C-alpha cells in the first residue's frame, strides 16, 4: 500500500501533530506517575529528590503484601480454569456446529461488553441467592471469599481467552487438519501435532490477557470479596478514596509495570510465528 494518500501539506501536518499529541496524552501521565513514585517528598506530585523509600514501604507493608498474595492466587487459578474452558469453547465454536451454538456464541461475547458494575451486581446477587438457597436446603453456610472472587473472575476471563484463541483458529486454514487426517493421523493425533502447536500462541496470549484482567479488576472483586479476600486493586482503590499518598504511587507503578509487561508478552505471543495462513 502506498503511503502517499494525496493529502495537502496542511492536513498532513495536522494529522501528525494530532498523532503526537495522542501519544503524549497516553504516556505523559504514566511517566509523571512513575517519576513521582521516586520523589522524596511526603506530598504527592511534588519533586523532592530521588528515593526508593516508597518502594521499601511497599515491601514492608503487610496489608499490601496480603492483598498482593490474594491477587496472585486468584489470578493464577482463574486463568488456569478459564484457559481450559475458553480454549475448548473456541475449538467447539470454530470447528463444530452443534445445537445452541449461536446462543453460546452470544453468551460468550456478553461478559466482554457488559459494564463492570452490572456484572458486579449480577455476581453479588447470584452468590447471595445461592448461599441463601444452600443454607435453607442443606443447612450449609457459605460466605464470600477467595472462592467467590475466583469464580467471578473465571466468568469474564473465559470470554477473553476464547476470543483470542478463536482469532487464531479462524486464521488457521482448516485444510491443515484435513491434510493431517489424510496423512494417516487419527483425530487425536491431528489435534496433538497440528492444531495444538498452531493455536498455542493464541492460548498463551489469551492466558496472559486473562491474568492481566484478573489482576486489574476492581469493581467486580469489590462486590464479591469477603474479609481476607481483598485483592491489591481493591485495597489500593480503598486507599485512593481516602486520599493520595506516595505509597499508593509506588504500589500503582508496580501494578502498572506488571500489567504492561503482561500485555507486551501477550502481544508477542499472539504474533508468534506459525500458521496464520496455510
Amino acid at each position, binding site marked *: 500500500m502506498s503511503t502517499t494518500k494525496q493529502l495537502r501539506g496542511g492536513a498532513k501536518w495536522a494529522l501528525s501533530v494530532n498523532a503526537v499529541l495522542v501519544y503524549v496524552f497516553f504516556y505523559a501521565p504514566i511517566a509523571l506517575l512513575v517519576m513521582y513514585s521516586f520523589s522524596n517528598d511526603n506530598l504527592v506530585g511534588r519533586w523532592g529528590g530521588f528515593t526508593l523509600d516508597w518502594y521499601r514501604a511497599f515491601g514492608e507493608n503487610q496489608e499490601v503484601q496480603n492483598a498482593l498474595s490474594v491477587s496472585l492466587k486468584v489470578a493464577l487459578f482463574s486463568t488456569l480454569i478459564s484457559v481450559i474452558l475458553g480454549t475448548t469453547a473456541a475449538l467447539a465454536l470454530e470447528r463444530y456446529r452443534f445445537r445452541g451454538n449461536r446462543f453460546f456464541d452470544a453468551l460468550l461475547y456478553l461478559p466482554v461488553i457488559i459494564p463492570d458494575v452490572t456484572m458486579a451486581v449480577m455476581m453479588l446477587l447470584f452468590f447471595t441467592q445461592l448461599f441463601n438457597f444452600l443454607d435453607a436446603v442443606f443447612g450449609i453456610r457459605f460466605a464470600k471469599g477467595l472462592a467467590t472472587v475466583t469464580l467471578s473472575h473465571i466468568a469474564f476471563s473465559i470470554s477473553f481467552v476464547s476470543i483470542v484463541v478463536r482469532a487464531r483458529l479462524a486464521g488457521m*486454514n482448516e*485444510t*491443515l487438519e*484435513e*491434510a*493431517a*487426517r*489424510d*496423512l*494417516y*493421523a*487419527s*483425530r487425536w*493425533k491431528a489435534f496433538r*501435532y*497440528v492444531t495444538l*502447536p*498452531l493455536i498455542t500462541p493464541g492460548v498463551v496470549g489469551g492466558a496472559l490477557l486473562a491474568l492481566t484482567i484478573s489482576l486489574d479488576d476492581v469493581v467486580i472483586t469489590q462486590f464479591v470479596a469477603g474479609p481476607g479476600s481483598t485483592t491489591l486493586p481493591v485495597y489500593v482503590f480503598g486507599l485512593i478514596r481516602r486520599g493520595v499518598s506516595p505509597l499508593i504511587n509506588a504500589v500503582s507503578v508496580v501494578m502498572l509495570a506488571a500489567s504492561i509487561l503482561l500485555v507486551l508478552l501477550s502481544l508477542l505471543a499472539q504474533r508468534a*510465528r*506459525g*500458521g496464520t*495462513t*496455510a
Partner: protein
Amino acid sequence: MTEQSTSAVSINGVTKRFGDVVAVDNVNLEIADGEFFAMLGPSGCGKTTTLRMIAGLEFPTEGSLQIFGEEVGTLPPNKRPVNTVFQNYALFPHMNILDNVSFGLRMKGVDKKTASAQANEMIDLVRLGGMEKRRPNQLSGGQQQRVALARALVNKPKVLLLDEPLGALDLKLRQDMQTELKSLQRELGVSFVFVTHDQEEALTMSDRIAVMHDGQLLQVGNPEQLYSQPVNRFVADFIGQTNLIDATVADDEMIVLANGTKVRAPNPHPPGTKVAMSLRPESIMIGDREAVPSESQSTSLSGVISSVVYLGHSVVYTVNVDWMPLEVRVPAVAGVSRYEAGAEIAIWWDRLSDWIVPDEGYRG
C-alpha cells in the same frame, strides 16, 4: 468399461447432499489403475466434493465407493490408501520440509530413521534436495507445490488425489508443472485423480476426463472424444470453443437450421426434436461466394464479416449469417490477404465436422 477388480477407484451410484443442496448426484465412475484422470467442470459442479469423498474428507450420502475393489465409503481419511495434494498445499507451517514430508510415515508408525530416509529420497525426487530444514513459507509457490506432492507420494498411495494443484501458480510455472506432473505419474505408474476447472489443462494432461456440471457426471472419455463428440450442449461449449447453432430434426438423416437451411446430419432423435449443431471455429472454411464447393460433401451458408481479430497464428472472423453470429478461425498464412469487416462471403464445412447434441438442459 474396465473390470471391477482392476479399477483403482470405483464409484457406484454415489450421491452427496448438503442439506437441500445436491452436490453430487448419482455418479457412476470407474478410474483405471495407472490412469491420469481429470475431473473437469465449473466451480460448484461437484468435482471437488467427489474428490473429497474419495479421500474420506466427506462421506457419501449414499452409494458405493471402492478403492481397488475394497469398499471404503465410511472409512475415515486416515484409514484409506489414498493421499491428497490440497489446493493451497496445506503444508504444516510449524514444521520444516523434512517433517512435513515424513509426517504421513510417522503417523503410520514408521520409525523416525526409516521415515526420514524415505522422505529424503522423495525430496530428492521432486528436486528439493538441500531444502529439508526450511519452513514452507521460505519456499516459492512452485517449491511448495513440490513439497505437497512429495508429502503425499512418500506414503506410496494407491491413488493420488490432486485438488486444483496448479491453480495458485502463474502461467509459465503452471505449464512446467503440468509436464512434470505428467512425467512423475508415468514414472510411478500410480493413478492420479486431478480436479480442475481449466479445460485446457485437463485436455493436455489427462488420459481420460470426466465432465461434471450441477453435481451430475455428463460425460467421461478421452480428450479427443470429449472434443469431437460431446454428449450435450454444455460439454460442447465447455470443452474448447464452438458455435452452437439451434436446429430441428427433420428425419434421421436431416436437420433444419433456423433459416430453413437443410443440413444432412445423421441423428438418432425423432423428427421435430430441438437440437443444437456444434461447429468448431477451426472446422469452418471461409471464401468468396463463388468458391463454395459442391453440395454433396459440405454445407454452406452465406454471411457478412462483422469483425476480424488477428491472433498471430490464426485469424478469427465473426461472420453474421442471417440469424446469428458465427466464429470462424483460419490459419494466418503470410502473404495471403485477409477479408475485411463488411465483406460478403460464404462459409462452409465438411459434412463430418458438425456434431449434433440434444438441446435439453445446459445452455452455456
